């Protein structure tokens, strides 16, 4: 089973990529040269890679409560850098790629 990988599908972009057991969804995306999720700190802190997991099982790493409150966990909200799949996943990106930048005025 060590070579097994899971299929991650991101809805908005329509892209899919494979993720190894123990690998985060964000790292897997980066490793395959895809850009359907914005990459920030990769540590569960900045909130840039926020997603909703629509289906599938996964393990959650630690995430800033500023971006993912305990109430939203049941809705499948998570930071992709802290999502470790245990099955195939369907996810949707909740942050567009810097669409409202660069001056930050509308935050």
């Amino acid at each position, binding site marked *: 089973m060590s070579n097994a990988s899971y299929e991650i599908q991101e809805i908005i972009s329509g892209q899919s990529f494979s993720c190894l057991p123990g690998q985060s969804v964000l790292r897997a995306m980066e490793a395959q040269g895809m850009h359907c999720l914005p*990459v*920030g*700190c*990769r*540590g*569960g*802190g*900045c909130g*840039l890679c926020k997603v909703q997991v629509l289906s599938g099982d996964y393990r959650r790493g*630690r*995430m*800033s*409560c*500023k971006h993912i409150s305990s109430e939203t966990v049941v809705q499948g909200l998570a930071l992709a850098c802290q999502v470790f799949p245990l099955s195939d996943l369907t996810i949707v990106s909740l942050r567009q790629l*810097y669409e409202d*930048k*660069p001056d*930050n*005025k*509308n*935050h």
Partner: protein
Amino acid sequence: MNKGVMRPGHVQLRVLDMGKALEHYVELLGLIEMDRDDQGRVYLKAWTEVDKFSVVLREADEPGMDFMGFKVVDEASLQQLERDLQAYGCAIEQVPAGELNSCGRRVRFQAPSGHHFELYVDKEYTGKWGVDEVNPEAWPRDLKGMAAVRFDHCLLYGDELQATYELFTEVLGFYLAEQVIDADGTRLAQFLSLSTKAHDVAFIQHAEKGKFHHASFFLETWEDVLRAADLISMTDTSIDIGPTRHGLTHGKTIYFFDPSGNRNEVFSGGDYNYPDHKPVTWLAKDLGKAIFYHDRVLNERFLTVLT
């Protein structure tokens, strides 16, 4: 004008997982664990620092900076600064001696940018780590990882830059070393110093108050920065950008993230100032070059990823 505020003394950072944080700050950055307290906070220092600690880590549900502290030369200056802060309209909070282990009383206040700062006089003087006080060797031989030389500065994001500038220059005695201004002459970035260094603390305009961009640690040489980059790869640490050079300060630098998403910098070199120097100015239209001197293009992540 000098008001008796001497230098950056400490920064307290929130981390999501203390074990992972220590793996990062001790094993990779090369800070030394000096103490722990009954709140679970861990006290660290870089080896050339003479006081007991400069980085305090606190486990919390949200990363970011709790506060940054500056050391003041003596008690009389601290009392004058308290009066000056209050006269300026800045509310102060007294933090009693011992709230941080081995540290005297602290005077805490919130800058208009939303960040919390502290002034203090006393902290236990433990001397440079790993070398004798008399006839010290060049460096201790058992340093880890990047072997950070000292905690150098923080870069903070928030609004009310002008009011923050006035507080830091008029009340606290910082001077403007470097700045970025837009076409209207509005300052978008201000690098403030107490010393000949290009910055002891810096602020960049951002709509949300109180955000943390990075804590920076000094290395001696460009070769050390390159070696830091090697270690970042060896440990699969999340990188932001570099190694490269800044236009602002001209420091040679690399940025990376701790396991909770707080950004760190290690850098070498950089501009110096004396009191007769005018501030160095960069134009906002050339911000790409001002921040990343070689690419001359902004990495959006550098502007938007904050804790």
